[in-house]
């Protein structure tokens, strides 16, 4: 691709981050600043019978103590508004906020938090997904019917959002099958775990508040503050210093309003910095636990004819952004396969756990793990090689998918061929080694986005964008796009970003969408500046603007490279008159139509810019202990055109490592009290650099006309989807049967191989 002619350049934020000179939210310190601490529920489900903050308020050095009584009584959250800033009457999970304190220092703030008197009357704990959905279950939300849900959202008792995907007559199609296979897979919840625990600093100046926060979505954070504190957007400014990772855990609006309210009450700047434990318990962003039942019918020749699915997703106590999870999970249980008839139903189930929310490819790694494990079971029942079975049944150009979308040119088949071909699949391996294969898909998320581009008098460029950098590098890649349009180098551009008062709106570092949407905005803005440069150069060179070419820092007349003027010179001329300023937004790609019937539609059955992938993972099993080691991973991805290969490889490698953790070691353990038991990095086992396998990545570059700039699709989430599934299929080959729980811990693998259930 032409765009990849500049494969390597220094990230704008790289030197700051590497040398330690970069500033993160926790590094912000303001004169007179106070420390914020929260009082958490500490119990999973209870009615508040007494809440007395008088002793805390009276303590020397305490400037503010807030509870639900001290902030506007607003019930918020997108789609399913079901929560308040502070618990009112009932607490529904251990990390729910009951009160907040601002004090002169951490010790005083903690002492004040401890001095708050809260008494509870226990309510029945709801922590079993199936029991929660049964008639007569205690309710997590007594008032669920009163919540002002939006769109086509369907609710039921203890179900925040229900969706189905239904195509064709599934009973008839299933009856025509030669084999029917039913499987159950159960995934534990897990965490996004950015290395930087979040921090928020708020400072008021008159009626305006400025909030420095570690969020992936500054405009969402601003909207949350405006909604809950009932303020106009013009009075709230959200700034994100460098962000120390997110992985979805910092999507959505979290504690910005609490800190702003504390700062207002205290009449001083207030700073909140989370501990690791708080980071793991309090935010409404964790990867959801899930039960997946799948039944598929296949013909003796291996043709897939019908599928039914039943999915229960652990919503936790509040809905955060999870209303779309059922539909997305249903799409992943249906999968990128062609079949006559499908019926998948999915429920987002309230429990007294920490709320779930978008973590890198929400619902997909677990649902893909279930589906692709099930797919290997289907291949076995008809006696086919699992890769051949997939080749026979996957969607392809012109083929109608599970929800009735008909695909254009897609790279799924080439991904399958490339990943399997690069792996040791089919080779003679030692009897404790195997290669497992899984395929996956993931949508791109078109949306509105904006940017300004300017070139200053010295010829230096600046991109002023609403986009947020969370480590994916996509904001950094924007410089390549501007440079290409303007015949300049990426290093010629500075970025102004992560400030809601500086730039137009962008969704933020969420849904793999920065390049897809903000890339479009930057290209459009840069083209405006390019047109200005051509006009100026045409005057200087006595040529028509259409004949001016921008390249190598110069404007020259087409066909006459020597007849040129430098962009620096043009910028100097422009600075004396009409300045070089462009703006971009543009029309987002369209969502395709689908033929499936979707109850509880959340707009995610038809996918623009669908991404496809295949991972082939070589694993080794210590048969006596059940410990699995991932030796190497061959990955192939269709994410459309790859704009920045270095960043793209980084996304795939990081996504795979996250997938290895989900597969083998990362899972939340709950006590009978519905509280998390492993809320630290000692007992919640992330993979380490020492565990990283060899990773080979191939990109199948098919420019998608209905996607981002130059046919690029998203890439941040897709690499996280099939890894656990591929590992599972390797392990199942060695054990002889699938391990039906995620993570597939050593003990679970051992128990499965011994024929024990846990």
């Amino acid at each position: 691709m032409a765009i990849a002619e500049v494969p390597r350049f220094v990230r704008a934020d790289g030197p700051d981050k590497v040398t330690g000179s970069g500033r993160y939210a926790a590094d912000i310190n303001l004169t007179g600043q106070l420390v914020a601490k929260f009082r958490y529920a500490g119990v999973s489900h209870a009615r508040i019978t007494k809440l007395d903050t008088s002793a805390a308020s009276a303590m020397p050095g305490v400037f503010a103590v807030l509870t639900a009584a001290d902030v506007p009584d607003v019930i918020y959250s997108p789609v399913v508004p079901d929560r308040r800033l502070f618990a009112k009457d009932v607490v529904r999970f251990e990390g729910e906020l009951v009160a907040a304190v601002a004090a002169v220092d951490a010790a005083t703030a903690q002492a004040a938090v401890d001095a708050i008197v809260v008494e509870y009357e226990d309510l029945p704990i709801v922590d079993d997904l199936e029991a929660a959905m049964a008639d007569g279950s205690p309710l997590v939300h007594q008032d669920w019917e009163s919540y002002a849900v939006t769109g086509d959202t369907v609710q039921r008792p203890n179900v925040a959002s229900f969706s189905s995907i239904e195509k064709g007559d599934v009973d008839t199609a299933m009856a025509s099958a030669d084999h029917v296979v039913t499987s159950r897979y159960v995934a534990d919840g897990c965490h996004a775990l950015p290395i930087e625990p979040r921090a928020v600093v708020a400072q008021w100046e008159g009626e305006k508040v400025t909030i420095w926060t570690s969020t992936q979505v500054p405009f969402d954070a601003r909207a949350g503050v405006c909604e809950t504190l009932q303020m106009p957007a013009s009075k709230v400014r959200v700034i994100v210093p460098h962000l120390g990772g997110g992985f979805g855990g910092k999507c959505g609006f979290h504690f910005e309003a609490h800190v702003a309210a504390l700062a207002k009450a205290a009449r001083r700047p207030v700073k909140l910095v989370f501990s690791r434990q708080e980071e793991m318990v309090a935010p409404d962003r964790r990867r959801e636990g899930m039960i997946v039942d799948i039944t598929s019918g296949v013909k003796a020749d291996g043709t897939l004819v019908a599928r039914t699915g039943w999915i229960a997703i652990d919503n936790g106590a509040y809905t955060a952004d999870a209303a779309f999870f059922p539909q997305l999970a249903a799409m992943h249980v249906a999968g990128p396969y062609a079949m006559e008839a499908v019926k998948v139903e999915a429920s987002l189930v309230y429990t007294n756990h920490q709320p779930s929310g978008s973590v890198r490819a929400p619902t997909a790694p677990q649902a893909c793990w279930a589906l692709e494990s099930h797919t290997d079971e289907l291949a076995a029942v008809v006696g086919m090689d699992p890769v051949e079975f997939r080749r026979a049944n996957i969607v392809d150009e012109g083929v109608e998918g599970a929800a009735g979308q008909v695909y254009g040119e897609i790279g799924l088949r080439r991904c399958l061929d490339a990943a399997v071909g690069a792996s040791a699949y089919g080779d003679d391996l030692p009897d404790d080694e195997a290669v497992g294969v899984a395929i996956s898909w993931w949508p791109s998320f078109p949306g509105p986005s904006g940017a300004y581009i300017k070139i200053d008098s010295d010829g230096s460029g600046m991109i002023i964008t609403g986009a947020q950098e969370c480590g994916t590098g996509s904001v950094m890649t924007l410089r390549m796009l501007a440079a290409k349009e303007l015949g300049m180098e990426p290093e010629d551009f500075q970025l102004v970003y992560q400030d809601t008062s500086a730039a137009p709106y962008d969704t933020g570092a969420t849904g793999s969408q920065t390049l897809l949407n903000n890339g479009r905005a930057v290209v459009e803005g840069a083209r405006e500046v390019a047109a200005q440069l051509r006009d100026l150069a045409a005057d200087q060179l006595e040529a028509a603007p259409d004949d001016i070419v921008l390249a190598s820092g110069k404007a020259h007349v087409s066909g006459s490279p020597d007849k040129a003027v430098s962009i620096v010179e043009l910028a100097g001329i422009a600075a004396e008159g009409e300045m070089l300023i462009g703006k971009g937004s543009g029309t987002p790609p369209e969502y395709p139509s689908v033929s499936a019937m979707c109850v509880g539609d959340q707009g995610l059955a038809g996918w623009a810019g669908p991404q496809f992938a295949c991972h082939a993972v070589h694993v080794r099993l210590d048969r006596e202990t059940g410990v699995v080691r991932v030796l190497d991973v061959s990955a192939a991805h269709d994410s459309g055109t790859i704009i920045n290969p270095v960043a793209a490889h980084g996304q795939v490698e990081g996504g795979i490592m996250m997938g290895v953790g989900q597969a083998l070691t990362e899972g939340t353990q709950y006590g009978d009290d519905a509280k998390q038991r492993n809320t630290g990095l000692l007992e919640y086992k992330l993979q380490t650099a020492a565990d990283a396998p060899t990773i080979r990545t191939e990109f199948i570059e098919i420019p998608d006309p209905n996607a981002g700039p130059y046919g690029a699709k998203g890439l941040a989430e897709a690499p996280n989807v099939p890894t656990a599934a591929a590992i599972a299929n390797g392990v199942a080959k060695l054990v002889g049967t699938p391990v039906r729980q995620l993570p597939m811990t050593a003990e679970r693998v051992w128990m499965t191989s011994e024929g024990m259930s846990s």
Partner: protein
Amino acid sequence: MSFTIATTVDEALVALGAGARPIAGGTDLVVGARHGKAALPGDLVAIDRIDELGGVELDSAGVRVGALMSHAELMTDPVIVGSYTAIADASALVGSPSTRHVGTLGGNVMNGSPAMDTGAPLTVLGATAELRSVTGSRTVSLDELWAGPGRTTADLGELLVALHLPPAQDRCGSAYVRLEYRRAMEIAVVGAAAAVTLAADGTIASAAVALAAVAPTILSVDGVDQALVGCTPADAGPVVAALASEQAAPISDLRASDRYRRHCIGVMAKRAVDAAARRADGESIAVPVNRSLGIGAA
């Protein structure tokens, strides 16, 4: 609240006598305090600059290993790697490179965790602990030293200054293996150390096995020597696995169930004996055994 930097053992002992607690690498004390396990003691005496507490010295009674030897030093020390290899295996598995560089043998021993990595190797190698206080010194067996999880029988005024190891025998070898779920920043789910001496005919002349993380303290497996003497190393495997699983008294926690621990400790004990016997037979198995033989996540 006080922080004293001692440059001699005597200075340190005076501070201990006055109620201070010793700190060397701080990898247990500081991390524990941060996690709310135990508050940082009010008075600390830093012992990390006391030269007398370092070094590995050969003497007539065997080898004296200074309490301040870091895990990073132990895993490459020629005497330890050559003759007391299980200690090097264990040291190489502790935490991360940074914890291994600041964490010390003395700290590992006196922290008294049943999951400590160096405890089982020291036990099978017959180590004794030299404790000093302002009133004198005494040498105790490790069995006497460890009283329970996080507890020792040392008085508050006593400082562990060295571990003493008996002279290495001909045709002897040792190894430490552990069950782990990842390759760094890990704590033993269960661990086993073995020391084996071979007779001229290749059968086992003497053997000892000790276990980590399956009892309130490091557990020395009874009856190993009697059961294994005269066995070939291959025949010894199932025997030692059964003994270890039988005698283990594991708990269920976040890392594993008691049932799984009981099974895995047998596997680890068998592998430790196998590796120790191979080393006794002259085979060079690089430290740590876990990585060399592909054990756990290796």
